[in-house]
């Protein structure tokens, strides 16, 4: 192995996490907590190191290259291979996935140590890291695929890991089933999206005869308009599933039932961005069908606004962040839909940093609340204590200063305050919208205002004011295994703006080697001023409402509730979307499957199968009477047979 070029080692980025998970799977219980946790982290870290090396090598010579590992199958003229595509777009995703992934692995070592004890099954510790490594491997397959089929393998793989990790505590949750139900919901809703992707793949194969990126993108402009439109719209369906947009976002808030590192890694930073990556990668197709681009942009913008309204009224710390993720994904989807792929990918990267930070910080807060609860009640847990309820928190700034500090940094980045990373990326999207699609710009601006409002509301409720419960007043800071990744992510959030700072725009140059159309805008001072103003107004309004003594107790009414009662009710109940889906879709479906099961499956099919058996038994009982034991009747049968033969011979 020559070490001058990392490119022969490209498949190892996928294999190393697989080896890690293999060792943890078979020997995890002998390695102990420290062993299995650090082994998995080492695997993720090595993948990250490899990604960095590849990035450096690619920077010197930024030509896309394809590394074929092995042929997969070949049917007639249709060939699919396990081929890795290394270009600037995929390397960007690799860096984000493995970088944030490694940090979250480190965090999980400390977090899961507490979590398995809180949930009562310490032997399940290695399993978590098996699933995490599997996720890293699958996500890397997704982003480095050179053809749509391999991408689909990765797509399904991350869906599987999401299911496994949401349902990690499968026996816990509401009624002992809640987590399993949430996992099932995530899988089923994603399946609807996957169906869309499959139809798109079939159409692509039918039109181009191959699923390789180069073949398809090279001939994209020659295919029929209607076909490309159909393909892109079906892909959009897949994106609404995986990246939680309207109408298939409903699984993401339920997915918060999984452990917090899972929420951070999969449902904030990496898996949900797979949809954005898909659109970015298929830019050639979306360029050939401008209608699809418009639809995508509007879908993203409306999702951003819709989710932001729901986030305003949630009382669970993780649910606020979940809806915030949906909203920010809406921003990204709107950006790539409008054609601003650079802006979208920039926001993807910065969002990974600060959203992961927010989630991990929330995890730290939850652990602190649990420690406070256990310190107060030495005789055991009360089942109705919810460590995630913001109404019982408050004043944690004094008890958990480091967590509070990094959380505020992330919150300001989400709101979009200069010079944090979130400002630059969100501003770029807004600037692009203002120039091309003014209506979308208005929608996104309102969403930005609501974003600033709800995140400040959360920070005020959690960290400031007075503690509203014993647990909050007894909470303690987390240990360094948890805090160090938080600090690193905070540093990335502070410096992340450098990725695509207006003026030097390194990301733009980086991605220009891969993207066919570079839609970018110059930095616009007016848009920056407007967005900063919107953010400050949002922060100020929320601060005024929530930091005063109006929230003195856990039972006090939310100030928004006081002012906007009916709207607040709607927002708090997520606009009853789950209930509407249940009534419109789930109920008829379960009724139909019940009817099919009882009438068709049990009645008809079982009837036929059992009927065959019954007929056999009946026939046998009839024939059985022939064997009556009397020799004379046997002789008569002989005679009849002879007569029949002679009949045949005579009449021949």
């Amino acid at each position, binding site marked *: 192995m020559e070490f001058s070029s990392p490119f022969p080692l490209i498949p190892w980025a996928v294999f190393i996490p697989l080896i890690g998970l293999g060792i943890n799977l078979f020997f995890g219980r002998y390695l102990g907590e420290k062993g299995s946790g650090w082994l998995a982290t080492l695997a993720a870290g090595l993948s990250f190191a490899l990604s960095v090396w590849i990035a450096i090598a690619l920077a010197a010579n930024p030509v896309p290259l394809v590394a074929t590992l092995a042929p997969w199958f070949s049917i007639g003229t249709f060939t699919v291979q396990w081929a890795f595509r290394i270009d600037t777009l995929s390397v960007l995703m690799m860096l984000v996935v493995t970088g944030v992934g490694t940090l979250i692995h480190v965090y999980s070592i400390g977090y899961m140590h507490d979590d398995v004890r809180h949930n009562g099954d310490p032997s399940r510790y290695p399993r978590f890291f098996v699933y995490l490594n599997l996720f890293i491997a699958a996500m890397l397959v997704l982003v480095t695929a050179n053809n749509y089929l391999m991408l689909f393998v990765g797509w399904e793989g991350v869906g599987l890991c999401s299911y496994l990790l949401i349902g990690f505590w499968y026996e816990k949750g509401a009624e002992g089933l809640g987590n399993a139900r949430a996992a099932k919901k995530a899988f089923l809703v994603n399946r609807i999206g996957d169906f869309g992707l499959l139809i798109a793949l079939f159409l692509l194969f039918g039109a181009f005869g191959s699923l390789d990126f180069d073949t398809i993108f090279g001939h994209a402009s020659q295919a029929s308009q209607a076909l490309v439109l159909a393909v892109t719209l079906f892909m959009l369906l897949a994106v609404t599933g995986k990246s939680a947009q309207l109408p298939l976002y409903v699984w993401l808030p339920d997915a918060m039932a999984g452990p917090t590192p899972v929420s951070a890694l999969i449902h904030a930073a990496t898996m949900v961005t797979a949809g954005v990556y898909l659109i970015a990668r298929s830019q050639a197709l979306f360029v050939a069908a401008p209608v699809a681009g418009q639809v995508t942009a509007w879908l993203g913008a409306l999702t951003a606004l819709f989710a932001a309204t729901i986030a305003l009224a949630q009382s669970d710390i993780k649910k606020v962040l979940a809806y915030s993720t949906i909203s920010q994904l809406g921003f990204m989807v709107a950006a790539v839909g409008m054609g601003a792929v650079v802006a979208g990918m920039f926001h993807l990267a910065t969002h990974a940093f600060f959203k992961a930070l927010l989630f991990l910080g929330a995890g730290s807060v939850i652990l602190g609340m649990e420690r406070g609860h256990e310190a107060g009640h030495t005789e055991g847990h009360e089942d109705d204590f919810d460590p995630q309820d913001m109404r019982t928190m408050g004043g944690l700034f004094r008890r958990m200063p480091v967590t509070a500090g990094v959380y505020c940094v992330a919150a300001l980045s989400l709101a979009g305050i200069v010079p944090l990373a979130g400002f630059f990326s969100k501003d770029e999207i807004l600037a692009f919208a203002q120039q091309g699609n003014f209506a979308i710009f208005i929608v996104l601006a309102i969403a930005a205002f609501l974003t600033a409002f709800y995140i400040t509301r959360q920070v005020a409720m959690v960290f400031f004011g007075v503690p509203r419960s014993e647990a909050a007043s007894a909470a303690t800071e987390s240990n360094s295994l948890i805090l160090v990744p938080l600090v690193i992510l905070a540093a990335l959030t502070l410096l992340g703006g450098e990725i695509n700072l207006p003026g030097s725009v390194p990301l733009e140059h980086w991605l220009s080697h891969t993207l066919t159309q570079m839609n970018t805008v110059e930095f616009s001072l007016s848009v920056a001023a407007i967005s900063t103003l919107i953010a400050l107004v949002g922060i100020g309004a929320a601060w005024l409402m929530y930091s005063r003594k109006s929230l003195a107790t856990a039972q006090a009414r939310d100030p928004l509730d006081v002012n906007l009662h009916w709207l607040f009710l709607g927002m708090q109940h997520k606009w009853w979307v789950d209930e509407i889906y249940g009534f419109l879709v789930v109920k008829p479906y379960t009724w139909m499957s019940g009817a099919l099961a009882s009438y068709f499956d049990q009645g008809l099919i079982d009837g036929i199968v059992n009927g065959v058996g019954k007929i056999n038994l009946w026939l046998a009982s009839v024939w059985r009477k022939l064997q009556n034991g009397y020799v004379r009747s046997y002789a008569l049968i002989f005679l*009849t047979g002879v*007569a029949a033969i002679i009949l045949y011979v005579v009449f021949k």
Partner: protein
Amino acid sequence: MVELLVFGVMALVAIGSALAMLLSRNTVHAALFLVMNFVTVSLIYLILGAPFIALAQISVYAGAIMILFLFVIMLLGSEKLPAAEPLRAHRPLALLVGLIFLAELAMAVTYRAGIIVAPPAPTDTFTSPAALGLALFHSYALPFEITSIILLAALVGAVLLTKKEPKV
């Protein structure tokens, strides 16, 4: 003409005795009717120019086999079997099949046998036992020998089957 008359009488007697054997309730009577049938058929053989076979029929069939039957009847006692017939549908079915069989044979005879010609008169060279003996020992010597083995086997078998089981 005479031959036809003789044949007719013989045929009637043969059929009559066969039916009587079938229908008689007493086993000894059935055996005796069968003997009459054999004798009648033997006479028909004579008409057909097979004197040796005719007399062999009388001595083997009527003489030996029927004696054997009568001995067994004596040993086992011809009991009166109960009149109730356990298989109710048996008799009508059997009669039906028999009738069909007869009809088929009749049809076979009428449609297939296109020859309505009398056999030629028997000649000395054909009918004499000498001719039979010559053919037997010239061409059919092997079956002859094998038949003797069969007879031996039957002898041994009959003895073995009727041996009393030794008391253990």
